[in-house]
């Protein structure tokens, strides 16, 4: 974060400058109009960019909202380390919510499968946390290029008091005019980086020197091959199937979630330019490493209707 911006504006703003200005504008609108905003923090690269944008949007003030991590207890250890470090460095208030029901029933991806695991920890956990603190606007780091139903979602995405999304009844969203009004109990999910692509995110991280979880960089890590994916053995809670022996492979992650549900890719990319290079030359999309999109056709749209981010 040492680089200094050129004092004189360039001939034409670059695409990253325009995207940044748009995201900052969105964050400020929420801060000005919502009663109790919160920023959802998932610790991944998109969240890292969101934190950075929030720091920029309100400088020299601190962002006027806390961070909320809806924890599943199954994130990579390196992610928890990053979470604590970033909250401290940027001076954000950090709230962590773990669904007590999931804790009590020991919900985990191995015994309960990815669908139930995600539903109870994340979807239900998120609803609980929003209700508990009474947040009326929650920033999320979703991008429209990630998935088909996201491509159709508004930047300000309105949710009923039951946290449901109605894709056929979205508020028209024109120019830079966002309608933040809602009735008591209703809330809005706000996606400031809707118009960024995966490449934009990486380039911005590179340009702005934004800290990210080391798991994005290749390193030799213990993995097992399971159902066609490379799963990292991140702690001893992971039960090995008969015959499974962790292998030491040079791998990295293109996306970060719960470690048992996040496939690694074999790679030697150890720097940001190398990661970007690999991404540009690769032939599969980013969410492919995630199990949740494959569960059923239109699965993300359905999950979103039920209140998943």
């Amino acid at each position, binding site marked *: 974060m040492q680089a200094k911006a050129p004092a004189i*504006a360039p001939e034409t703003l670059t695409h990253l*400058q325009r995207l940044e200005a748009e995201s900052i504008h969105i964050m400020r609108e929420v801060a000005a109009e919502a009663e109790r905003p919160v920023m959802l923090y998932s610790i991944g690269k998109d969240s890292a960019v969101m934190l950075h944008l929030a720091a920029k949007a309100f400088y020299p003030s601190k962002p006027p909202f806390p961070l909320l991590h809806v924890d599943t207890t199954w994130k990579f250890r390196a992610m928890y380390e990053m979470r604590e470090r970033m909250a401290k460095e940027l001076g954000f208030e950090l709230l962590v919510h773990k669904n007590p029901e999931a804790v009590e029933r020991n919900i985990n991806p191995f015994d309960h499968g990815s669908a139930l695991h995600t539903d109870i920890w994340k979807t239900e956990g998120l609803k609980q946390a929003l209700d508990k603190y009474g947040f009326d606007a929650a920033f999320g780091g979703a991008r429209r290029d990630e998935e088909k139903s996201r491509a159709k979602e508004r930047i300000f995405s309105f949710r009923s008091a039951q946290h449901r999304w109605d894709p056929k009844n979205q508020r028209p969203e024109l120019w830079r005019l966002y309608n933040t009004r809602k009735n008591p109990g209703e809330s809005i999910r706000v996606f400031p980086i809707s118009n960024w692509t995966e490449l934009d995110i990486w380039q911005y991280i590179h340009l702005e020197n934004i800290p990210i979880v080391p798991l994005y960089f290749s390193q030799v890590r213990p993995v097992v091959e399971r159902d066609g994916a490379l799963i990292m053995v991140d702690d001893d809670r992971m039960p090995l199937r008969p015959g499974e022996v962790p292998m030491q492979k040079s791998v990295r992650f293109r996306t970060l979630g719960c470690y048992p549900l996040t496939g690694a890719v074999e790679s030697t990319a150890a720097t940001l330019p190398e990661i970007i290079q690999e991404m540009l030359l690769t032939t599969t999309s980013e969410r492919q490493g995630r199990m949740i999109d494959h569960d059923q056709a239109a699965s993300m749209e359905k999950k979103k209707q039920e209140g998943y981010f």
Partner: protein
Amino acid sequence: MAHQSALIAEDIETYLSAHERKSLLRFLTCGSVDDGKSTLIGRLLYDSKMIFEDQLAALEADSKKVGTQGGDIDFALLVDGLAAEREQGITIDVAYRFFSTDKRKFIVADTPGHEQYTRNMVTGASTADAAVILIDARKGVLTQTRRHSYLVSLLGIRHVVLAVNKMDLVGWDRQVYDAILQEYADFAAQIGIKDYTAIPMSALKGDNITSRSEAAPWYEGPALMQLLETLPVEDDLREQPFRMPVQWVNRPNLDFRGFSGLISTGTVRPGDKIKALPSGRESTIDRIVTFRGDLDEAVAGQSVTLTLKDEIDISRGDVISEAGSPPPTADQFEATIVWMDDEAMLPGRPYLLKVGTRVVSAQVTEPKYKVNVNTLEHLAAKRLELNEIGVCNLSLDAPIAFDAYAENHDLGGFILIDRISNRTVGAGMLHFALRRSQNIHWQALDVDKASRAALKGQRGRVVWLTGLSGSGKSTIANLVEKRLHADGRHTYLLDGDNVRHGLNKDLGFTDEDRVENIRRVAEVAKLMVDAGLIVLVSFISPFRAERRLARDLQAEGDFVEVYVNTPLAVAEGRDVKGLYKKARAGELKNFTGIDSPYEAPENAEIVIDTTAMSAADAAEKIVAWLEGELDYSI
């Protein structure tokens, strides 16, 4: 990106520094599915290698399952994201797609073509720098080509590309192409599209998409991608006077007071003289503060925080402008409105209007005409329905700083929000201020409300009784007035039926007329309260929004809402005037409770349950409330 892959593989650093300098073009595509719009977008994504193998595999599987291309890849499936869209094979909502070439990054708003999704197309068009309008070469200029072109022109999109698609199906016949162009030229001139570029193409085959096709040697212009890569963006925004709507006042401590916003037009430097609107106060820019340090200059499109040399009062919603050429301020306008809600726009109903970062209350005072979007005919209109576009006069409850939409989209584009449902119900474009807003001033009078009230020894109030026809409002109001009169109070009773014999005899029972009915009565009640009277209003007044209007007209505490709650069955059973019977027989249209809704109050000061209380007791309750809760004897 294929053409760049060698550079990516060999020298990623060089590639990155080049890519960082790319500009951004936002464009929209319009046309129906039949025109090949989705195919075109799919083709652009495919040719710029934005479709990954796993997506391609899913697409191939989907194409076989539900595709319309006989087993070939159906690109439309790639872009239609919602389950309902895939099932019905239509595009419902605007979708955003992203791709980049080695010159530029693109955001494509893929908008639906059907007339019932006009609002979605307008949404996509509002942020576009350019529009690609598709025409099927076999069909030529269709009704919807005209509609889309009109909307594109209405939204002020600077660059228009006419994509004459499916040229392969007419054998690349130049005469066909020329005839389409001739027809379009006449129409474009009519709607004010001065400048556009036409390209003959085949999205399905990839001709004239990324490179010039040999199929049409007679065509000498650019391929679509070449054109999109070179269209100027945000060209003249910087040349315009400086304007920045204030989003947020940045106060980390007592020593710092900054104004955060996104610069709409112009440039700004420390030392520049500025004016804050609508207050008109002036100061000088001290610093341009960003996270990366202070700037010597900031331009249109950047999000910044400005500090001033003087402590002047500026808050969210104000506009900071160049002192020498500030935007005008006004509270009455002519505007074009696109209606976007299932519930029609009603003249007189107060909506919230958001322009820039300002929110005010606004009423449409007078719809002048609506436009038939297919023929451009002007039609007389009293209301606007979903997807209708009209030119109207607007009256705001406070002056705003504005520019005509044609000059500045940020200060001339607005949305309308329903105060009860909070839905975004309309969008509009300001044309100009009405001169009367500058010429009619309030006349200050020496004898005021307080002195009139003092002479009567009472404070004026409105007691507003609402409820179904036959609920007992008038009976109760009559008893209340008798009681107050006996106590020596100065009163007046405005009764719904009686007022319709005189002041409002020109009004019927449509939704518009009901709104106007209430507006007039609320204004009359206001004058009477100003005169010091206790005014009893007995009106069905079925809509929350209008009761809200009546409440907002009065000073705080001067409006007492009484909900005379009688179940429909009970009111209908009484049917004193025989009206329910007529309504049920279909002889009476728009009858509240039968074929027109009654919206019960949510926060009435007094609720009367007539099934549990006699009219006399109800009157007693209201008088007691007035005596107890409100000190109405000053």
